């Protein structure tokens, strides 16, 4: 197992955002994370990537306990996340944005930084915009930049938070193709996605959260038929 999360819980004051969630992800897998708004998906990501320390529970990554690591330390271990709302370094060029990942992520001693950045820009289709200042990019390009930057940090595990949100169907399917290609680079992926068709099509397994709790975990087909999942998404009357 690449990632093994045990009994993760996060409380904010009286509110329980993530409640006793356990799951694991195998190397090379694309693992989907679904759930209605406020189900705790982003919070779960932040527990894994170290933005918040969990109230209880452990995160084992690559056999190493990384619970409560700071984001920069989690990144050094090989866990990198993207952000739900894209957060490029606005005043930097696309090149420099990606350079931040390449410089401060896990260094690959075989390649120099400029090579890595250029390769990733080509891979993500951003090469034509190399010298554009990030704030001037269109939304689809910003989404790609978010992914490119994370990829430059050379992760083993990439957490993608709604990289398809706000994109039209063509752009979304382009993004899903990119995600499949990322897996070819032997990067394991956990992704949160609202576009049902997209996440069902690309994931090997899916976990569904509701009110911070795990309500289903299995292949896309299994999850799609789970009465609890149907209830959470469509309301009680549709559940058997």
């Amino acid at each position, binding site marked *: 197992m690449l990632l093994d999360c045990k009994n993760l819980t996060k409380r904010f004051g009286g509110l329980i955002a993530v409640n006793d969630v356990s799951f694991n992800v195998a190397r090379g897998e694309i693992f989907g994370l679904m759930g209605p708004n406020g189900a705790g998906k982003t919070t779960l990501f932040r527990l894994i990537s170290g933005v918040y320390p969990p109230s209880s529970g452990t995160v084992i990554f690559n056999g190493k306990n990384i619970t409560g690591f700071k984001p920069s330390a989690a990144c050094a271990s090989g866990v990198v996340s993207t*952000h739900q709302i894209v957060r490029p*370094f606005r005043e930097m060029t696309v090149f420099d944005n990606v350079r931040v990942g390449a410089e401060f992520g*896990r260094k690959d001693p075989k390649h120099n930084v400029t090579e890595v950045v250029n390769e990733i820009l080509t891979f993500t289709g951003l090469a034509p915009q190399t010298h554009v200042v990030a704030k001037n990019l269109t939304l689809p390009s910003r989404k790609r930049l978010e992914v490119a930057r994370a990829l430059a940090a050379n992760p083993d595990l990439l957490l993608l938070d709604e990289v398809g949100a706000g994109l039209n169907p063509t752009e979304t399917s382009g993004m899903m193709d990119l995600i499949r290609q990322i897996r070819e680079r032997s990067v394991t992926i956990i992704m949160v996605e609202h576009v049902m068709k997209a996440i069902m099509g690309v994931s090997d397994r899916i976990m569904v959260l509701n009110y911070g709790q795990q309500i289903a975990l299995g292949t896309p087909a299994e999850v799609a038929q789970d009465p609890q999942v149907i209830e959470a998404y469509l309301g009680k009357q549709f559940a058997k």
Partner: protein
Amino acid sequence: MKNRKNLYVLGGIALLAIIPLIAKTIDNGYLQTLTFFVMMFVSMSVAWNIIGGYAGQISFGHGTFWGLGAFTTAIFAIRTGLPAWLAMPIGGLVAMLYGMSWGYPTLRLRGPYFAIATIGIGEATRLIMLNLDQLLKNSPLDWLVKDKPFTGGASGLILPSPNDFQANQLLLFYICLGFMILTIAISAWINNSRFGLALRAVNMDQEAAETLGVSASRYKVLALMVSAFLVGVAGSLYAQYVLFIDAREVFSFSNSIAMVLMPTVGGIGTLWGPALGALVFKVADDRLSSARFMLGGMQINLGDVNLMLYGLLLVLIILFEPGGVLGLLKRLRKK
């Protein structure tokens, strides 16, 4: 293009270097003193910009580092009898360690903690320095104040005067020129380096930077240390030049205000903006501080409304041209 820029820089340095030679014939050396202070303020402004501009952590208390550099130098010169210029790195070091001691806890966190703390530090330090002699009396460190004052309290400290005053001023002028070049070079190096990339990333979005592996607090503290060191050295130069310092004056809020104002006027977060801002600020300050005008039959000295002008300038720049003079020039050139 690059060559032309280098040519400008070299020309500028050459021009500054000959100023002491011509100053005497023009205005009895006043130009030399003014240039010394301009160069010192350019260094301070550029140094402030490393933490305030690149890292985006506004400091309202950099005057403290300057004052500490000055005091360290005075105390060193008085106590050891060695030439004061030897104390320059020590002054920088003291300022740096002092900055670290409260910079570390406040920079570790996201949010305005650092900026707010800097508002208190100047006042707190001034109070300590004014009362230190009193505090040391009858304490285990009594020997420090036994036969001569340590910080001098309200009456200040007088540095031993050099044998040849004129030669000393001239020497300091060139040291200051060299120091200014060094400061700008350090700032330029940071701007182009991995360090600078980290600072700018943290400035624009700390959380995003951290998820990409940048250890934000380390780089911010490092930036503060470099900045404080350089400002401390500038303070040391000041003490050697004027040969008399007192805590009330060197820790006054006005130096801290100047260090916020100059880079903002010139172009915060850029390489040359802070230098330009310091030049504009210091020359204007020198020309205008004695100016007066009539308002509704009331005579107003410009010196009495300088805070208002500074404040107005800050507000206007933020609202209309956050890039400062440099940003304005760039925009004009595009048109």
